[in-house]
């Protein structure tokens, strides 16, 4: 292609994402668009094609983005090249969302005609606006009996400040309004700007590890042209590679001779580690380098830490292998070996958020077949000691003695919650209970409010979302962003089983809540730990001071006093089953503790257990 051809083609490229709250129909809309552009024969259609991992499919969420190149013959007679870039739908992956939005010029905003705007929608719309995207509002699910498209149209105008008069009324499920959406993409989304002859600038918005090709980086070209054989450089990491393959997904993998301005596709280059192709980094030529990188790159830092330990101590190396394999594909996952008196050898792992943590855990157990004990998640505390030194503590067990501490600072987030106004009281009560500072409340329309609180991240990690969901019967939506560290009156709570401190059960708690939580955890453990051959006292302590106690009485009877006749095999099986149950528990000192107990610090109902 010569320059003119490239520019002409560039003018008919449209790059866009779909943004939506979970369940508002993003994946279904993506399927319809693929159908409409004949990207796939009907028989190839797998429902919700863009969600590729099993786990995603099961959980109905998207964790890895994907980009597809589509051809669309518009009503003006021209054929356009569309790049539809999928975005992950969870707050843990906000940064990845922002980078994939940065690869676009436009976004289709899908709002559920019955439920209206949710916190997640708003957060993503703001991300899109930050990236100067043209936003095309779509009111989806208009075929539902409870649909109120006019109310939602008004809400989009009032809350987001978008002109929604042209908003498409659609039903992705029923295939209504799809063509109209595509026409609006052609008309409203700007063509990519950029110079195909300038030094290369390409944004990495995702990367995955492939066992045969090494890292596959998903890129959007802003300036210049990239071809196989080119020497390239990652501007943030400084690493250089030679391009081996480039191509696009249609959604089948198709190799190309070059990618140029506006193109969205992938490249491979014998890159061994996804850490070398960081999301948000700019690729440029090794020789003919761009002077400035594309804006917005940030190194992803984990927000939540927890310990992962194999139940079977001999699986420590297997666990390391598993984490290393996952790391190839997940630049945000961090881990380092640690040891616990109670749990032996394991790893302290850092995650973007709770969902990220759960996904990693589940993949280790499912794909690598390692039974895990997970300690309760913790945030990173800034600890300033009396001698002036500063410590970062990501494991409650490592919190220094209180006499040595000058002050502790903890991360705070700005939490935005949206709900019908009948729940204002409930939400504010929860915000208060979770040590939040009220910031702001706004009516989005007559019925719906948006409430903003500043809340310690540790409370979010604890059980905030579950509580919010259950207290508002699922009506509230929620989003948060980190706003920095603030001093707090925090103490370390230790748990003693049979008079021995179990380091893996220690947690950090605000002084004002320490008694209450100590009592809760002690009662919870009493329920979770089965009776042993001897009485097991459980204590919660701050320093030397016991704040709560209880005990598990000794096992009185465990013997098969049943007439099994001559069925010895059955008797054997029963004993084997009991024994296997024990094996899934961790021997802590002389006490056998089940897996769930280590998560008890996290998952407890905030009601005093009934005796």
């Amino acid at each position, binding site marked *: 292609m010569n320059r003119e051809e490239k520019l002409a083609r560039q003018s008919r490229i449209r790059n866009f994402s779909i943004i939506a709250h979970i369940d508002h129909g993003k994946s279904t809309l993506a399927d319809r668009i693929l159908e409409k552009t004949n990207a796939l024969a009907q028989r190839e259609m797998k429902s919700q094609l863009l969600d590729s991992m099993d786990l995603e499919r099961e959980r109905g969420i998207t964790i890895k983005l994907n980009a597809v190149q589509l051809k669309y013959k518009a009503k003006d007679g021209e054929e356009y090249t569309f790049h539809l870039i999928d975005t992950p739908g969870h707050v843990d992956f906000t940064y990845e969302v922002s980078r994939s939005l940065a690869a676009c010029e436009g976004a289709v905003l899908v709002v559920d005609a019955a439920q209206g705007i949710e916190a997640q929608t708003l957060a993503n719309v703001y991300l899109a606006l930050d990236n100067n995207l043209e936003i095309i509002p779509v009111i989806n699910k208009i075929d539902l009996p409870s649909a109120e498209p006019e109310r939602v149209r008004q809400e989009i105008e009032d809350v987001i400040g978008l002109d929604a008069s042209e908003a498409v009324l659609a039903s992705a499920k029923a295939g209504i309004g799809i063509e109209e959406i595509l026409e609006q993409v052609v008309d409203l989304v700007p063509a990519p700007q950029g110079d195909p002859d300038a030094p290369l600038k390409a944004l990495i918005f995702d990367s995955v590890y492939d066992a045969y090709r090494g890292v596959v980086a998903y890129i959007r070209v802003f300036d210049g042209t990239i071809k196989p054989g080119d020497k390239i450089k990652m501007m943030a990491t400084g690493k250089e590679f030679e391009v081996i393959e480039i191509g696009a997904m249609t959604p089948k993998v198709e190799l190309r001779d070059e990618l140029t301005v506006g193109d969205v596709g992938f490249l491979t280059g014998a890159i061994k580690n996804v850490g070398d192709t960081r999301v948000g980094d700019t690729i440029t030529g090794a020789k003919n380098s761009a002077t400035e990188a594309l804006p917005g790159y940030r190194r992803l830092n984990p927000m939540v830490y927890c310990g992962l330990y194999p139940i079977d101590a001999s699986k420590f190396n297997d666990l390391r292998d598993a984490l290393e394999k996952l790391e190839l594909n997940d630049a945000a996952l961090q881990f380092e070996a640690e040891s616990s008196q109670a749990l032996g050898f394991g790893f302290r792992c850092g995650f973007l958020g709770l969902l990220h943590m759960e996904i990693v855990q589940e993949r280790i157990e499912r794909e690598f077949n390692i039974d895990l004990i997970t300690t309760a998640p913790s945030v990173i505390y800034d600890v300033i000691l009396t001698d002036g030194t500063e410590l970062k503590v990501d494991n409650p067990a490592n919190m220094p003695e209180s006499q040595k501490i000058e002050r502790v600072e903890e991360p705070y987030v700005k939490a935005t919650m949206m709900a019908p106004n009948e729940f204002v009281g409930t939400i504010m009560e929860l915000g208060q209970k979770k040590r939040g500072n009220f910031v702001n409340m706004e009516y989005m329309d007559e019925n719906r409010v948006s409430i903003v609180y500043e809340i310690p991240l540790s409370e979010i990690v604890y059980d905030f979302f579950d509580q919010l969901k259950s207290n508002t019967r699922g009506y509230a939506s929620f989003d948060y962003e980190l706003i920095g560290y603030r001093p707090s009156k925090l103490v370390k709570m230790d748990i003693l089983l049979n008079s021995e401190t179990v380091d893996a059960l220690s947690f950090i708690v605000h002084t004002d809540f320490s008694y209450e939580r100590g009592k809760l955890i002690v009662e919870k453990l009493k329920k979770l730990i089965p*009776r042993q*051959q001897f009485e097991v006292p459980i204590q919660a302590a701050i320093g030397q001071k016991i704040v709560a106690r209880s005990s598990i*009485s000794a*096992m*009185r*009877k*465990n*013997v*098969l*006093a*049943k*007439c099994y*006749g*001559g*069925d*010895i*095999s*059955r*008797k*054997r099986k029963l*004993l*084997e089953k*009991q*024994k296997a149950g*024990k094996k899934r528990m961790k021997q802590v000192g002389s006490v056998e503790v089940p897996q769930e107990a280590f998560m008890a610090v996290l998952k407890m109902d905030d009601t005093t257990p009934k005796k």
Partner: protein
Amino acid sequence: MIQSAYIHIPFCEHICHYCDFNKVFLQGQPVDEYLKMMKKEMQLQVKTYPSAPELETIFVGGGTPTSLNETQLQYLCDSISETFTLKKDGEYTFEANPGELSREKLEILYQSGVNRLSFGVQSFTDDLLKRIGRTHRAADVYETIEKAQSVGFTNISIDLIYGLPGQTMEDFTDTLDKALALDLPHYSSYSLIVEPKTVFYNLMQKGKLHLPPQDTEANMYEKLMETMEKHNLHQYEISNFARTGFESRHNLTYWNNEEYYGIGAGAHGYTGGKRIANHGPVKKYMNPLQADELPVLETHVVPLNEKMEEEMFLGLRKTAGVSMQHFKDKFFVEMTEVFAKPIEEQTRHGLLVQENDFIRLTEKGKLLGNEVFQAFLNG
């Protein structure tokens, strides 16, 4: 050489709420055909796995053996005596339900050489009996036992269950008192275990079964042991009590880890070094026999390590425990060598004790038997 036989009659007039043995409603079942096929099985088994010239014990259980009519009962007893020869002082037991035994049936049994009866009494509290699906009442127990004694039976045992839903300590003590007042030479007392495919299990799934807590059940077991002891009925196994000389020799076959025939639908045998399970459903059981084949569902060849484990977890159920000398004679290796770790560990926990040639459970160990038995399992 096999010296014991278990024979299973899977028919019942009523199904109890806790029972998970192989059983079906009697009505409409091909009982005559079943008995015929079972006779064939006895003969096939003896041909396949040689029996000792004379058996030590025969045990007919169920289901309900006494649900058979007189003719059927006679046929069954004849089949047994045609196939097996019982030692002169051999033990020949029939299980029976109180209230279901006519004088005629008792006579048939007595004439056929049956010398021991085991009654499924379970409780003397009528209310509880009703709740667990038994059709007999306490009064039937007295009547039937009297009848049996008048026919000539002296070696009589009854089964009692504790830990029943809604059962209180008082209920159980009362049952014990009434049971002991009968002054029988043998008592078995089992704790209720809720098993899948029972009425109780379904109730439990729905949260509608209220069992006594572990502590109450433990108290009942302790009360049981204490009371039996007081009445000179010594505990020779976890759930079995007898006057000296009246221990059930058939059950001891199991605890002593010796071989036995298992005959009938769903019966389990231990023959030729194999644990064998028969097909359970009556039709499935009879089909292969019609073609002169054994109705085997599952066969497990017991490897040496499992044999040794079984020697321990079965043998330790006996109050006497397991003889180290016997172990060595049987397996040509020292018990203390094979099981050094569990023996040391469980002794340290106070659950096992070594006395002369025997390793046995302590008093505490009896209540926590499973903890000990598990320790002897490998893996």
